[in-house]
């Protein structure tokens, strides 16, 4: 899909003899540290559309779409159904390399910015970033769309997949700003930011940036210890528990 987008850009370049626009981006911070009172963080992105004398003038105004993707991972979507009197997980589909977080921020709703075909081609929108997958790709799986829809619906409800049609705005015809809220439950890792500039439903330029969500000081140390010295970590936790239990008998001694 990325290749298709690149080909399209190349085509745009070839057709118009003039140079297309270029984007220059700046993120308000490139790392978000999660500390003990972390409930989420705001990130602002500024972008400038650079044109030079040879750039063709556009009839329509610019549109901008900021796509943010969290680290990818595999998920299993399970479906419950009735087994006798009980509701149990009976069916499942696995989806690999699904972004743990997706935000699509644009200056107006995506449907108005580009047609469905184009959105899929250049991966605009949550829908385009969660490709359909099945247990077997070569056989038709009529149930699969339900699982995929459920995955997107549940992630939307958690606030991990968001599409906001007015989170980006043009401050001047060539300067835009987008604000992004990273929720407290956002997973750790590298977040890729892809910014696409469009006009009249046609992509003109694309530029990317990234930021990292990391654990802050003590949280990081605890999480690393839990992973790398699990026995000592477990022993330390147990000792802490026993120590506090002992302290309680001293504080509340009833004699």
């Amino acid at each position, binding site marked *: 899909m990325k290749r298709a987008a690149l080909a399209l850009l190349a085509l745009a370049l070839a057709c118009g003899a003039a140079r297309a626009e270029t984007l220059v981006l700046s993120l308000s911070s490139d790392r978000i540290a999660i500390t003990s009172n972390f409930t989420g963080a705001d990130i602002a992105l500024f972008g400038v559309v650079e044109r030079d004398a040879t750039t063709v003038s556009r009839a329509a105004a610019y549109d901008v779409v900021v796509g943010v993707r969290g680290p990818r991972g595999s998920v299993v979507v399970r479906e419950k159904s009735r087994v006798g009197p009980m509701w149990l997980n009976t069916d499942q589909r696995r989806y690999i390399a699904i972004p743990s977080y997706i935000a699509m921020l644009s200056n107006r709703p995506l449907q108005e910015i580009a047609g469905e075909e184009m959105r899929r081609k250049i991966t605009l929108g949550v829908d385009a970033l969660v490709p359909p997958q099945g247990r077997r790709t070569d056989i038709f799986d009529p149930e699969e769309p339900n699982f995929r829809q459920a995955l997107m619906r549940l992630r939307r409800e958690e606030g991990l997949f968001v599409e906001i049609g007015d989170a980006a705005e043009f401050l001047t015809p060539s300067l835009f700003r987008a604000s992004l809220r990273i929720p407290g439950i956002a997973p750790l*890792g590298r977040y890729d930011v892809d910014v696409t500039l469009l006009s009249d439903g046609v992509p003109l330029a694309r530029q990317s940036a990234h930021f990292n969500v990391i654990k802050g000081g003590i949280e990081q140390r605890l999480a690393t210890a839990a992973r790398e010295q699990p026995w000592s*970590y477990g022993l330390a936790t147990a000792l802490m528990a026993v120590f506090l239990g002992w302290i309680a008998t001293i504080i509340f001694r009833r004699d």
Partner: protein
Amino acid sequence: MQFYLPIAELPVDAFMILGMGAAVGFISGMFGVGGGFLMTPLLIFVGIPPAVAVATEASQIAASSMTGALNYWRKGALDLKLGVVLLIGGLIGTALGVLFFNRMRKVGQLDTVITISYVTLLGGIGFSMMVESVRAVLAERRGKKRVVRRAGQHAWYEGLPLKVRFHRSGIYVSVIPLSVLSIFIGFAGAVLGIGGGFILVPALIYIFRVPASIVVGTSLFQILFTMIAATMMHAATNYSVDVVLALLLIVGGVFGAQFGARAGLNLRGEHFRLLLALLVFGVAVRFAVDLLVTPVERYSVTLTETPR
């Protein structure tokens, strides 16, 4: 006040967790039970991943049973030999339980296993406790004294070999049924995030005729060490023990337990057991509802591989 849990990787309201710890601690202090069977479900209901809830609760039970066991130890109301025999089985059961837990987590059936186990185990025990205590309350009202077992009557398990004498408890029993019981409790404890006191105490009283004055201290001693082992084994194999969550739960629990213990003094024996039975049964019903009622959302999403 929001607090970020480093292992569960989500923010929680610290006062809510402290409050939950205190409320469960109050109940556990009142009834002399660990409270794991209440706390683990509560943690799951407020959105803590089941694996983290079960693994972390083990450390909270270790703390509260440390307090209890020390108090009984100082009063001399603890059979160390019986405790050690129970502990050996408990450790084997815990190891098996952690293995089973990790296996079920891998195949994606952990939630179902936890739900069904809570329904059957707590439902069964809660129900039989309820029947027993209702009978006791009724019998007392009619002014009759109930005879639990007549002299000279022997159950089949009393004829088993490998008999050992436990002087402090004044019993002479085979270690085979004791081991079976403690392995089962260790297993259930590791899988469900419970100490198992509410199973162990009645079993020791009714099956093995351990005196009531010694049984609680002895069971707390066994639970203390199995839960220390469970904490370490969970930490070492599934990395799900959240030390920040554990700290909040322990601090809340310690305070709640003190007030609960005072409130418990005013309760009479039969009513006391009936209330506890209702509580245990209530948790089972809550899980049964999850299992039986048509869910609003039939789908669920689980991350199987940590994002890169």
